[in-house]
């Protein structure tokens, strides 16, 4: 390996988090962006071709060295490292909604899930997977949440666009105009007093930035 690749390897080994390319480049102020990129490529290829227990992964806007999955079980059995706890279904549902609808308020997440999400949102916030990214306009000025770089890292995503696009999902939503043309449903009634009132109750104006 060339000396830049070795330097990058040393830095990547030293860091528990992904390192963005520009920070890798800062390791050697003399190195051109092309040289940094080719050193990254060399390192990654080296791990792959030469047969290593680790690999170089492009994740969350940076590069990170991770162990290969086939060794995880043995490492955990020997108690040398512990896998992070799995997220509960409730946490995953909440995270999925926030990932796709960010910035989004708590009331709107609760509306989609059909259950209160206060405790789940608090837990996701404490784990650093979501953060407050703003406040809604209007009444109450509800806090709006979005996903963090740690979210990308923990789901091995380079960026949010790696999640399936909404129109690629099997179930398409009417709100995106994707309901089958012959679907026998019409937009929710708004002239029905009871329904409208119930909808208003379930979705306070503050947290409902719905596309008009």
């Amino acid at each position, binding site marked *: 390996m060339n000396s830049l690749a070795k330097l990058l390897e040393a830095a990547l080994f030293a860091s528990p988090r992904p390192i963005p390319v520009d920070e890798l480049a800062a390791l050697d102020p003399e190195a051109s962006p092309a040289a940094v990129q080719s050193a990254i490529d060399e390192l990654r290829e080296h791990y792959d071709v030469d047969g290593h227990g680790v690999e170089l992964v492009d994740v969350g806007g940076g590069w990170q060295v991770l162990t290969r*999955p086939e060794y995880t079980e043995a490492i955990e059995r020997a108690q040398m490292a512990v896998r992070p706890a*799995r997220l509960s279904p409730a946490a*995953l549902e909440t995270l999925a*909604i926030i990932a796709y609808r960010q910035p989004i308020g708590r009331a709107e997440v609760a509306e989609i899930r059909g259950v209160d999400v206060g405790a789940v949102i608090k837990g996701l916030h404490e784990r650093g997977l979501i953060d407050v990214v703003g406040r809604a306009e209007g009444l109450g*000025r509800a806090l709006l949440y979005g996903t963090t770089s740690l979210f990308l890292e923990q789901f*091995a995503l380079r960026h949010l666009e790696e999640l399936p696009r909404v129109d690629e999902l099997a179930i398409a*939503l009417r709100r995106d105009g994707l309901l089958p043309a012959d679907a026998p449903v019409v937009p*929710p*009634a708004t002239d*029905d007093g009871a329904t409208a009132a119930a909808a208003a109750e379930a979705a306070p104006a503050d947290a409902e930035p719905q596309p008009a």
Partner: protein
Amino acid sequence: MDVLSSNVRDDALVAEGSFVVELAGFNGPLDLLLALIRDEQVDIYDIPVARICEQFLGRMHELKLNEAAEYLEMAARLIRIKAQMLLPRKDGIEGWEDPRAELVRRLLEYQQMREVVDVLEKLGEDRRNRFSRSYTQQAAAPPPAPLALSLSDLLVAVDRVLRAARKPTIHEVIPRALDVDGAMQTVRAVLQLRALARWRDVVRPDAEPWEVLSGLLALLELAKRSELHLTQPRPFADVEIRRELAGEAA
């Protein structure tokens, strides 16, 4: 026989579990409803509400979810839709709104989200199967990066806070919690205009808590200094604030 054994299984689950929603295996009423629609193999766009409603109530009872507000709310919604479906209507009349439409929209939205959950679950599981470096080599944490701060950032943040707060609670640049001196001056000014004043004359109706407190402390302080005299004709009546001529002279 099948029904019986399934009941037995559910009862066992109920006995073991501690948290209704978890033990039921459903993440809420929409999840349960989708499961019923799947089990009954009915068209989500043409839900037989009466049948599904009955099933829903049955499962709620079976799973002992009768106390869970979210399930109760959904049950009530289903019953209402069921009633609306029974109302006579003339086919082809413009403007007839299917009472199920909103529910269908929510179910589809929820179903779509479940699909994303499956994607996330797989991605998260793949990532959980890889370890990152857990040993940090530096003896001490590296010094934090220098801060890039600008006054304008701070002021914009103040502005955000002001706009966000229901009532702007920031009033004083000068760092002090209360302004008793200011309130005392207000009281003195009021008492110069009139010999008898009331609470509302010295503290405006929409006063912030710190202003109320400042006003109260100012009155007490001035009373202590014998500049004014506080009386209350009867309990809960307005407090009367009287100029104390002797005190003012002193």
